[in-house]
């Protein structure tokens, strides 16, 4: 079928949907009015905050390290955003079909390219707009001129567009291309952080929009357009096998977001990641008893070393943050980085948390099974904390032995936050609900977004209030208490 017939099918579907619509015109009008008004109001507030933050940053950022970090910020953010665009595009496809579309429309004799294009264009539009907005925020905070902000945001958006095109090419049978580009961008971001961490970064001047930049913009535009056109041509030739996995995640992700259950989001992404692997090389043998669970974690690590690589590579983040002059607040940067990067190591604990049958199958107390599953993440995060000893020593102005203790305290706080995050329970709709304008809401719904961050703050606090070995000891005791409580819960 040709494009016209696809449009007719869409028109028919729209017609059926509208036929079942129960909302009155006035309801739709007031909803739209509130949405537009809220967008304008919050947008104005955000821009106002941003402009004030720019002035405040310019006034307070006087040290050499801070000036370095500030001048590198937009380039770091720009590169990270382009990498994130590529990562998100590869995760979802970027072309994908929901289970309903895959079952009903992809099976029909319709032009597949025409069928998939509208959703892809909408996805591209959203991703490119978000990329441009983030780039504009970073450029504004750095003090770029208005023309430079616009040009920078446009450059990042176009680079993101090009990456989307490349992701589509990768989806159509060239997965290595997407993987290589993603890792290259991640390596570039890491290299920039390393330069900042080593305090070797020169202060970059604010760029001026001139002929060179415009020429570069044109080149990026042409490359992005080329990749997009090439990718669009292949859209119609994508198989259901290539389109379905990204769309299959949609119900799970929307359910997780509706209940603000980020751990469920993690489950969906984990399942998606491993479903793409048809088979692996099995690793046989191993110790008996409870240590078999630790061995299984080591098998996982060998199979997927990138999760450990991310933790190891993230050591540069606290060192780069040190250039901002965090001082006594440096433990926050260390434990937060450990928490966010350590989550990938806790997949086994997450799986047994949501699957009681696996816990039941083990001949140990529940707490022992869970404890064995945090051995590998725990050791990794304590080593991560120790690797941050020099930055704690110089930032918090403590002796080396105290810095070592604080490193362990930060690793412990990161582990406790990870355990809190992965062992979180979903919102319980069987308990009394809180009445809100959006309907009945479980008491722990909104709080679940802060899960993990609460323990990160509480467990790190002693080291902020009392930057010494004793503060680290209190922090470790708190972390251990939290971990023990969470692992012993029935």
């Amino acid at each position, binding site marked *: 079928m040709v494009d016209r017939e696809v449009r007719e099918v869409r028109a028919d579907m729209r017609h059926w949907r509208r036929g079942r619509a129960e909302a009155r015109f006035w309801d739709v009008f007031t909803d739209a009015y509130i949405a537009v008004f809220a967008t304008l109001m919050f947008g104005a507030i955000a821009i106002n905050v941003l402009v004030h933050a720019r002035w405040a940053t310019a006034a307070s950022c006087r040290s050499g390290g801070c000036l370095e970090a500030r001048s590198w910020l937009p380039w770091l953010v720009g590169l990270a955003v382009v990498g994130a665009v590529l990562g998100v595009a590869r995760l979802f496809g970027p072309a994908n079909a929901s289970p309903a579309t895959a079952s009903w429309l992809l099976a029909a004799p319709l032009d597949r390219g025409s069928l998939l294009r509208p959703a892809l264009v909408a996805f591209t539009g959203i991703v490119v707009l978000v990329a441009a907005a983030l780039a504009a925020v970073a450029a504004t905070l750095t003090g770029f001129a208005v023309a430079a902000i616009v040009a920078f945001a446009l450059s990042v958006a176009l680079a993101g567009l090009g990456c989307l095109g490349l992701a589509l090419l990768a989806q159509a049978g060239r997965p290595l291309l997407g993987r290589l580009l993603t890792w290259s961008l991640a390596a570039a971001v890491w290299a920039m952080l390393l330069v900042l961490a080593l305090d070797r970064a020169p202060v970059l001047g604010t760029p001026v929009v001139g002929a060179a930049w415009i020429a570069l913009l044109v080149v990026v535009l042409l490359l992005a357009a080329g990749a997009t056109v090439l990718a669009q041509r292949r859209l119609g030739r994508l198989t259901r096998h290539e389109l379905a996995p990204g769309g299959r995640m949609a119900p799970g992700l929307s359910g997780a977001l509706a209940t603000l259950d980020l751990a469920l989001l993690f489950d969906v992404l*984990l*399942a998606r*990641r*491993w*479903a793409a*692997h*048809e*088979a*692996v*090389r*099995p*690793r*046989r*043998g*191993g*110790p*008996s*008893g*409870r240590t*078999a*669970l630790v*061995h*299984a974690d080591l*098998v*996982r690590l060998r*199979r*997927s070393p990138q999760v450990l690589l991310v933790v190891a590579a993230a050591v540069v983040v606290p060192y780069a943050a040190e250039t901002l002059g965090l001082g006594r607040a440096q433990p926050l940067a260390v434990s937060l980085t450990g928490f966010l990067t350590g989550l990938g190591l806790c*997949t*086994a604990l997450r*799986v047994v948390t*949501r*699957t*009681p*049958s*696996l816990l*039941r*199958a*083990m*001949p*140990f*107390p*529940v707490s*022992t099974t869970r404890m064995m599953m945090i051995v590998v993440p725990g050791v990794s995060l304590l080593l991560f904390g120790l690797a941050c000893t020099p930055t704690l020593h110089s930032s918090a102005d403590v002796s080396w032995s105290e810095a070592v203790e604080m490193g362990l305290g930060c690793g412990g706080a990161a582990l406790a936050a990870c355990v809190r995050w992965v062992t979180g329970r979903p919102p319980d709709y069987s308990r009394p609900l809180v009445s809100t304008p959006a309907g009945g809401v479980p008491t722990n719904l909104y709080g679940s977004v802060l899960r993990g961050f609460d323990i990160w703050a509480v467990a790190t606090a002693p080291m902020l209030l009392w930057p010494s070995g004793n503060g680290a000891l209190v922090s470790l005791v708190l972390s251990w208490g939290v971990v023990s409580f969470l692992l012993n819960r*029935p």
Partner: protein
Amino acid sequence: MTAADAPLLRVRGLGRRFGEHDVVVDLDLDVERGTAVALTGPNGSGKSTVLRCVTGTDKPTAGMIELEGRKLDERDPRIRAALAVVMDDIDFFPDLSVVEHLDLFAHAHGVADADALVDEVLHEVGLIDQSGQLPGTLSTGQRTRLALASAFVRPRRLLVLDEPEQRLDKQGLTWLARRLNDDKVDGLGILMASHDSELIKAVADRTVELGAHR
């Protein structure tokens, strides 16, 4: 009655009520060593509820359950070491292969020659070609076989199965019946819920019809 004299599983006066609705009422049930008891009855008659109460995943509103003369508390590691369960809530680690799952169960339970036993069970359940596959790539029938295999690679004294015939082909059912009968010969007790009359006829020594109180 000493632990040696007591039946392997002893259920007395078991009741489970959901709101105003009695699903299981005053159920008495014994499973002796080397025997199999099948729970039968229409959908909603309480077969799975009884199994959930026995395995400790649901709390009965009345009655008591003992395993080898000791109150059945699924938190007790000794109980979990004795009780192998295959119910419909089983799931797997997404990043461990079929054979690695079985290795993990066997090693965790301290099986002496774990690798050899795992290989033998893999052959039996017909998953040898899928041993390197991840669970997410298995068909539903293959996942059922993996779930059953996970119970057979570990020591057990009571095997609890909830409709094990589901998604198994004819060949798989024949194997399952033979395997369960071998377990009975080895002195194991089996409690299963099933709709498959052939499997019940081949394996069960006694049938308990549920739902009769309604």
